[in-house]
């Protein structure tokens, strides 16, 4: 099993009764709350808090923390000036999300300004407002706070039965005697192409870690519960019990393409995975990145500590009679049928079961048990 990123799996959880006095409070949104959970639970190891200016500058310019550890996506706590008017360096502040019942402390070590345009250009390769990641950067508040956090309270939430932190997955993999584990990230129910990619990778390692990203979705996307139930159906029917596990990851997509592929790999390394599947246009959006930019970037990180498994394309070849990729099928494109997520979605939207060479019947039936499988 790989070492955690930076050498140490972070655990920043403390007991709530440590709070002896009233502290200044800042109400935070769900995305920031998820960042706190991911820091506290070790998903973002070696981060112990929200980033300081020197780390931010290094990430932006060099794709590394200031100690040279690979890190490509900044984890930032943005605040309004009025929220911090009575707060200064050295203070301890209570970060709260009343909606989901999260409370955490932050030791304020730095309050600083940042240039949104520079960050957007370097992280996303564009400063166009149409890019959803850039939109998020531009909508950030004016100031940033850097400092270590400590999680005090996190109420139970939907899908917790599928939510394992890196300490738990590492113990799980050890108990299963898995030494090499490949991680697969997803935001959709599985079609036959996904199953092919997962099983191809699994053939050469000990276990498969299916790790759907749960969180904010666009209208028309599959709902989180639909994704989880459909994967459970696939695993129960078509995977060996001791070779595949699924657990969720609560984080927001940044659509930062290649940089985000590295970030996704780092998180899976912290979960204990040795390999990470990277497909075409991983974490991409629109035409902002080349289809294989997210593959190429890995060559810049010899010290990443997790092996990327690249898939360029896969389709069903009518001549081979099976799912193929560009390395194994000699037949012309005219024999290839692509797995169209759009087409599958259209069929399911009208209550129809997609052909079995596109999606397992059991998976489709599971999706159709939902009256409304899509986000409104």
């Amino acid at each position: 099993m790989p070492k955690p990123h930076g050498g140490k799996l972070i655990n920043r959880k403390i007991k709530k009764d440590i709070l002896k006095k009233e502290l200044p409070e800042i109400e935070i949104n769900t995305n920031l709350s998820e960042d706190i959970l991911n820091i506290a639970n070790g998903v973002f190891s070696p981060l112990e808090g929200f980033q300081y200016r020197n780390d931010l500058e290094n990430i932006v310019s060099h794709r590394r923390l200031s100690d040279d550890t690979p890190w490509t996506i900044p984890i930032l706590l943005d605040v309004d000036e009025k929220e911090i008017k009575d707060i200064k360096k050295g203070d301890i502040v209570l970060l709260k999300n009343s909606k989901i019942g999260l409370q955490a402390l932050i030791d304020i070590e730095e309050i600083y300004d940042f240039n949104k345009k520079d960050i957007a250009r370097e992280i996303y390769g564009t400063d166009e407002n149409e890019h959803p990641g850039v939109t998020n950067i531009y909508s950030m508040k004016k100031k940033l706070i850097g400092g270590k956090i400590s999680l005090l309270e996190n109420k139970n939430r939907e899908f917790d039965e599928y939510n394992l932190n890196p300490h738990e997955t590492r113990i799980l993999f050890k108990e299963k005697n898995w030494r090499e584990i490949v991680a697969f990230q997803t935001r959709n129910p599985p079609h036959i192409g996904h199953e092919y990619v997962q099983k191809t990778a699994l053939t050469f390692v000990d276990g498969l870690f299916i790790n759907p990203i749960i969180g904010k979705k666009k209208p028309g996307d599959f709902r989180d519960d639909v994704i989880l139930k459909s994967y459970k159906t696939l695993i129960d029917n078509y995977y060996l019990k001791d070779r595949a596990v699924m657990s969720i990851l609560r984080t927001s997509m940044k659509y930062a393409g290649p940089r985000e592929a590295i970030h996704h790999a780092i998180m899976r390394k912290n979960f204990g995975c040795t390999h990470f599947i990277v497909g075409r246009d991983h974490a991409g959006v629109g035409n902002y990145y080349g289809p294989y930019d997210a593959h190429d970037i890995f060559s810049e990180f010899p010290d990443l500590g997790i092996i990327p498994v690249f898939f360029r394309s896969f389709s069903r070849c009518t001549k081979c009679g099976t799912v193929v990729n560009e390395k194994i099928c000699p037949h012309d494109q005219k024999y290839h049928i692509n797995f169209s997520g759009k087409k599958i979605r259209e069929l399911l939207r009208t209550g129809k079961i997609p052909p079995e060479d596109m999606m397992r019947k059991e998976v489709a039936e599971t999706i159709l048990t939902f009256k409304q499988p899509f986000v409104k």
Partner: protein
Amino acid sequence: MAEEKEGKKYTTISIPTPLANKIKKRIEGTGFTNVSSYVIYVLREVLSGIEEESEDAFTKEDEERVKDRLRSLGYLD
């Protein structure tokens, strides 16, 4: 001596000239633009393989608690 370059600290390390020449030749036609970038790449690769893991902050009891949770959720028998 350490110096600031593009906001990042760099320091100078001496290597034998014949070795530097070999590297120059080696990196021709590759993505490496100079000897330094190649040396940085190789050193990062070498060091990442030998870095020590810090001690796990979890006790045996913590581990047993985790196993209980994994069993209760059906991840372990």
